[in-house]
């Protein structure tokens, strides 16, 4: 908590002669990332969507570095989870590939745009986006096994269908998707936001796959993780090549989130996920408001 309090007062403190020693920041970053890892798993959101507004709002690092770290954080989590998801059939490469291609092209465009726009503009837009995500999380419904009356022409041509074994239901689940062109458009938009703000994109991938395209929820979650691993890679290269990857920011964050996620996974059985989800929504609300006010120059 002391480290969090320190982080809160960072921007003003950094300007002072008695600013905290530099090594406190990676430690505070580790502590905050560890907490993000825990609540991220419990609330079912990726680390990037919490990391960027919180660290961007309350730490002294420029938003360019925070967005790059957010992407790498989301990327590391997605890369770590993807092999098991692919092996278990909970992620489908066939379904993911067209969406990832569109998303990765637009994420590169988003990253380039983010680095070209004035910081205040990106900061304000980040705040608005986070507040929109809060609304999405608050209102979004989920469907375990959506009805797909018939696949669309593109889904049929690409044979976007399959079967996976659901251990919880102890049965095979046959799936197919529809509204593929709309899904591609949605993933283009999601990729743009992911690259622009370094948010990862699980918060948007899953509703699009599940509610719009009709993929079963578990397949949507698994496939979203795989799509993330490709989309975030593309945008991350833009930041990487621009020199926006600071190891002192990235490494403690990745380690913190991954360790926190392991603890979070253990706590899943004993903590009420709905309570944590409400806490995350309030946390995002505060971080989004902070980003917006900082961007507008009202609270610096």
């Amino acid at each position, binding site marked *: 908590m002391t480290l969090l309090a320190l982080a809160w007062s960072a921007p003003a403190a950094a300007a002072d002669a008695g600013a905290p020693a530099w090594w406190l920041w990676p430690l505070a970053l580790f502590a905050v990332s560890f907490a993000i890892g825990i609540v991220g798993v419990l609330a079912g959101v990726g680390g990037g969507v919490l990391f960027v507004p919180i660290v961007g709002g309350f730490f002294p690092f420029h938003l360019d570095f925070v967005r790059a770290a957010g992407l790498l954080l989301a990327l590391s989590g997605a890369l770590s989870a993807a*092999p098991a998801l692919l092996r278990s059939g909970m992620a489908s490469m066939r379904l993911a590939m067209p969406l990832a291609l569109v998303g990765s092209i637009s994420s590169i465009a988003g990253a380039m745009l983010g680095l070209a726009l004035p910081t205040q503009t990106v900061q304000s837009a980040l705040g608005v986006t986070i507040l929109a995500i809060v609304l999405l999380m608050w209102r979004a419904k989920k469907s375990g096994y959506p009805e797909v009356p018939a696949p669309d022409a593109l889904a049929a041509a690409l044979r976007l269908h399959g079967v996976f074994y659901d251990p919880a239901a102890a049965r095979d689940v046959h799936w197919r998707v529809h509204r593929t062109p709309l899904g591609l458009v949605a993933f283009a938009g999601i990729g743009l936001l992911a690259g622009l703000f370094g948010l990862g994109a699980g918060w948007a991938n899953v509703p699009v796959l599940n509610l719009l395209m009709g993929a079963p929820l578990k397949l949507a979650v698994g496939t979203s993780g795989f799509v993330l691993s490709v989309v975030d890679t593309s945008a991350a290269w833009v930041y990487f090549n621009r020199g926006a990857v600071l190891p002192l920011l990235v490494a403690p964050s990745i380690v913190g989130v991954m360790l926190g996620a392991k603890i979070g996974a253990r706590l899943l059985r004993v903590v009420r996920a709905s309570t944590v989800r409400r806490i995350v929504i309030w946390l995002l609300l505060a971080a989004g408001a902070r980003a917006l006010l900082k961007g507008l120059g009202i609270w610096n």
Partner: protein
Amino acid sequence: MSPQDERIPPEQLVYARWLDWGTRAGLALLAASFALYALGLAAPQVPFEQLARAWSLPVDQYRAAVGAPAGWGWLTLALRGDYMNLVGIALLALTSLVCTLRALPLFLARGERALALIAGLQATVLAVAAAGVLGGAH
């Protein structure tokens, strides 16, 4: 092979295996290099105090302030404590490209021409992004 495995396309299993190894190697390299960097066992190119004075600047101003390279220029500094960390990060970021290239001939071998085309396009996008020709490296 379990019954589950038989329903999963072979290229998906190969992709998963390569991704697993690439990710493990990248994270291990990152953890080891960060330990060397943070513990002061490998001297950084940009001293910590100078870094702390510059990390609140936009990236282009930061690079000018500390004399940091863009693009792949960091490779010449890869033995310095800070830039050493970029080896693991670059490996993590290259893994998807390598896995996609590995899966491409498997799609072709199974007659999945549409997916092979998408994999080829995806590999091109990732390679172009990695090369830094899309506005990343200035």
